[in-house]
């Protein structure tokens, strides 16, 4: 459970968070700069719902649950159902995000990001969380940042990997599937074909990076 007002610097310095979910530290290291991380909060980043924001894809990959407090009580929203569009969330008037719950299961995870300079928003980034049992992927979460993936998730790539071995070949194919299904837009950070290439490459790298931590 991460309180919505936990600051980025606090999450980055949490040994427990880093041990259970290395993906959180991967992402926090590349969110803005050290001084901004001293003030910015995890909940603030999620509620801003910037399509280039890093933690949205990370918590989508982790299948986190967001605890929302309203005037009449509390409700829990899956991270994957929290975002309805750029800068838009399901929060209604009178509701506040108060906490993020991340299920603690044996997993490996990683987040990889390409940006133009230190502290910048992502050109593209990918989040990967894998649960492995006896050499088989039993569950997988793949998130995409700034690449036009619906709900920040590469669902078709997840479907491809589930119930198979965690092989480099399958990871590369998952990347190709993710690239084919995302819908990046051209801007000053790059054209669509480049971003699509990034989606494929970063998904494969994030998956390999996660599995590389299994040993």
């Amino acid at each position, binding site marked *: 459970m991460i309180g919505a007002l936990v600051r980025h610097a606090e999450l980055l310095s949490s040994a427990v968070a880093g041990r259970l979910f290395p993906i959180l530290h991967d992402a926090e290291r590349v969110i*803005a*700069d*050290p*001084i*901004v991380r*001293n*003030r910015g909060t995890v909940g603030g980043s999620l509620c801003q719902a910037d399509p280039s924001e890093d933690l949205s894809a990370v918590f989508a990959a982790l299948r986190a649950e967001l605890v929302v407090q309203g005037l009449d009580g509390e409700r829990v929203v899956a991270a994957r159902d929290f975002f309805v569009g750029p800068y838009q969330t399901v929060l209604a008037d009178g509701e506040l995000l108060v906490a993020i719950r991340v299920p603690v299961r044996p997993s490996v995870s990683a987040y990889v990001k390409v940006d133009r300079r*230190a*502290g910048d928003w992502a050109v593209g980034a990918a989040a990967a969380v894998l649960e492995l049992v006896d050499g088989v992927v039993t569950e997988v979460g793949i998130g995409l940042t700034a690449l036009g993936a619906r709900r920040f998730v590469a669902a078709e790539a997840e479907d491809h990997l589930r119930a198979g071995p965690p092989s480099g070949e399958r990871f590369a194919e998952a990347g190709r599937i993710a690239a084919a299904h995302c819908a990046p837009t051209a801007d000053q950070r790059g054209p669509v074909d480049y971003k699509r290439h990034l989606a494929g490459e970063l998904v494969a790298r994030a998956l390999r990076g996660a599995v590389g931590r299994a040993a």
Partner: protein
Amino acid sequence: MQVVVVVNGEEHVRDVEPRLLLVHFLRDELGLTGTHWGCDTSNCGVCVVHLDGVPVKSCTVLAVMADGHEVRTVEGLARGAELDPVQRGFIACHGLQCGFCTPGMLMTARWLLDHDPDPSTEDIRSALSGQLCRCTGYENIVRSIRWAAEHGSEVAS
């Protein structure tokens, strides 16, 4: 709203609008214009001050959020007539040209050296990664902070 903020060891009580930013509180209410106001969007880092000992960009802190807390600005670096080692370092190594980014650079440098008295060039660059300088290309700023690390314990002449 009434706020009570301790700035450089001195308590200040003011009535402020809830929307007033800390950087404007320092500059316009208290007359402490050493803290500069740059991009207003937490990109440039010229407005860095310490809030309860932690460096923050004061354009993204509301004055009311500093209520009951301690702020240290660039005016609070020198001890009387004796400049802080980071200030002396910037003089010794020409760490500034126009000087606009300097207050923020100095405050981050002070915090860095308080936590790591012997930072590598890489550590310094990482600590300053949220601050922009359009004059020096950063080389002299990094040298200035290394100078402060090496001469920090010496008494200023």
